[in-house]
């Protein structure tokens, strides 16, 4: 492998570690809120780009290129939904979730669910499910990172894997969420430049998009259709709906993504972040799919479609640019892995350890416990990644569908539906996760031609509505939650009495007492 390529990769790692060090110096880990949410001071552009780069893993460079190469323009159904995923997420729940999480004093997306739907069962189920699924997701990013490093540097896989995992760990440790957010920001720019460079080189090689499409028509005209190679997906609207939904509304239910709303510098950040997300997505999202399609002409004898983007870059670009592109691919993998690792550690420490094992833990202790758990997860992940379980990529794609199915109605209704109650949310999560899981493993996708995400989201949504309505009398939404929901709907600063009533350390029951005391105090002054 060229030393120029390695030089660019090393340069990239140095910059990433430098950003982590900067975040540490700027208060990224001085207390629990600083470590887990960057002190809630992340601006619009960084919010948009950390949201997008966390959502787009190394799979964008491996899976998207592969899909374009194998199925032609059908692959663009995934991009069609994905382009709007960021602005949809920010516009629908961003501002209100930021405000509600502050009033609840919630530091993780799972803690937020328990405080909106008061019940330890909500936190246990959501916490365990999320740690389990994100753990698998992290594992796949480790494997992808290790393989990418090994391919680029020629190092043995175990060594390359150790380096990739080690670098992610070091900067996650250094600055917590702030380090993750700002390295994601940098990495999203590297990803964009890298992938656009390949596209421009590929179009130059083929004489432009029209000439390329005419040449593809000569190879197989069905590759230009919206129904895939050989019109294999013709009329399968259930599969098309799944492709559109998984990366658009699906993000609304991913706990590691919605945490980005809670860390915004102010509720209105969602507005400008939505604009940045759309701008970035318009350029980045369709490009890997189109490069995969163009690879049909550039690399007609390609054995492994997942290597389409790597191989196009290697065959068309000079070594220095290939180094940048390889850095972009590593950036996509690492920007997802670091967020997953931090979220998994945060949820396991805050939502399971502190909530149920050691409620007296100090903030300093919690940061240490979170770091210890991140280390433990990374070590376990490294050990499993060495074995390279063959089905891990399939499990990961599936895991994101289960997450979306389980949590989408819960996060959506948390801000929009005052009658969404604890039994409704809990049963919605259980049914959504179970349905998506069963749909995949019982083989219903083949027989019904409906994606697991569609089946899961429909069932969890119906469950949320029906169960909430049926249980209004026995489990009404507590008045203090309705009050903070009403406040979240308004534009303007949060009243001091609501902030005072939701101290970080208070459980929901204590928060209710605090709110009542604050109201009494105010009434007394009047």
């Amino acid at each position: 492998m060229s030393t120029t390529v390695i030089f660019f990769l090393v340069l990239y790692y140095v910059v990433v570690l430098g950003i982590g060090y900067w975040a540490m110096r700027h208060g990224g880990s001085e207390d629990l809120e600083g470590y887990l949410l960057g002190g809630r001071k992340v601006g619009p552009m960084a919010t948009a780009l950390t949201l997008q780069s966390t959502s787009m893993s190394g799979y964008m460079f491996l899976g998207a290129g592969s899909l374009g190469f194998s199925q032609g323009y059908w692959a663009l159904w995934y991009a069609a939904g994905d382009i709007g995923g960021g602005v949809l997420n920010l516009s629908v729940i961003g501002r209100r979730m930021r405000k509600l999480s502050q009033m609840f004093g919630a530091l993780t997306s799972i803690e937020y669910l328990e405080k909106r739907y008061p019940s330890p069962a909500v936190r246990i189920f959501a916490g365990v499910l999320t740690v389990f699924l994100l753990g698998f997701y992290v594992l796949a990013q480790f494997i992808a990172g290790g393989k990418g490093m090994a391919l680029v540097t020629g190092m043995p896989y175990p060594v390359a894997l150790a380096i990739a995992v080690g670098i992610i760990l070091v900067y996650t440790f250094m600055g917590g969420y702030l380090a993750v957010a700002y390295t994601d920001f940098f990495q999203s720019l590297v990803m964009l430049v890298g992938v656009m460079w390949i596209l421009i080189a590929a179009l130059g090689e083929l004489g432009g998009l029209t000439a390329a499409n005419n040449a593809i028509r000569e190879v197989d005209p069905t590759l230009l259709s919206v129904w895939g190679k050989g019109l294999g997906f013709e009329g399968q609207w259930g599969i098309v709906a799944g492709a559109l939904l998984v990366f658009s509304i699906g993000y609304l239910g991913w706990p590691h993504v919605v945490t980005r709303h809670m860390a915004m510098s102010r509720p209105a950040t969602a507005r400008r972040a939505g604009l940045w997300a759309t701008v970035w997505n318009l350029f980045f999202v369709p490009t890997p799919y189109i490069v995969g399609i163009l690879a049909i002409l550039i690399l007609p004898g390609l054995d492994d479609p997942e290597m389409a983007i790597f191989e196009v870059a290697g065959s068309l670009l000079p070594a220095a640019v290939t180094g940048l592109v390889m850095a972009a691919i590593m950036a996509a993998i690492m920007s997802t892995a670091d967020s997953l690792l931090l979220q998994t550690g945060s949820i396991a420490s805050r939502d399971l350890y502190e909530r149920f094992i050691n409620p007296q833990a100090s903030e300093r202790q919690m940061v240490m416990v979170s770091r210890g758990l991140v280390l433990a997860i990374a070590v376990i992940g490294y050990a499993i990644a060495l074995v390279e379980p063959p089905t891990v990529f399939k499990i990961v794609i599936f895991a994101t569908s289960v997450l979306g199915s389980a949590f989408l109605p819960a996060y959506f209704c948390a801000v929009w539906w005052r009658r969404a109650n604890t039994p409704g949310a809990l049963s919605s999560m259980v049914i959504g996760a179970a349905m998506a899981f069963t749909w995949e493993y019982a083989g219903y996708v083949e027989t019904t031609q409906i994606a697991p995400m569609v089946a899961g989201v429909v069932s969890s949504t119906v469950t949320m509505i029906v169960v909430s309505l049926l249980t209004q009398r026995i489990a009404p939404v507590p008045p203090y939650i309705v009050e903070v929901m009403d406040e979240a709907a308004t534009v303007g600063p949060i009243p001091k009495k609501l902030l005072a009533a939701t101290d970080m350390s208070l459980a929901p029951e204590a928060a209710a007492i605090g709110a009542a005391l604050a109201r009494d105090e105010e009434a007394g002054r009047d």
Partner: protein
Amino acid sequence: MFGLPLETTLLVFGFPLLWIVYTAIFLLVTRDWEHDTPEEDGR
């Protein structure tokens, strides 16, 4: 357009256009969000 069938052209260019319009409408209808001030100044 670009040598693509009509429905593929709509898929490739129509959906991005849809999201651009969605974003523009979102920015338009949420102009008052800028009045949100940091919570520390709460009323």
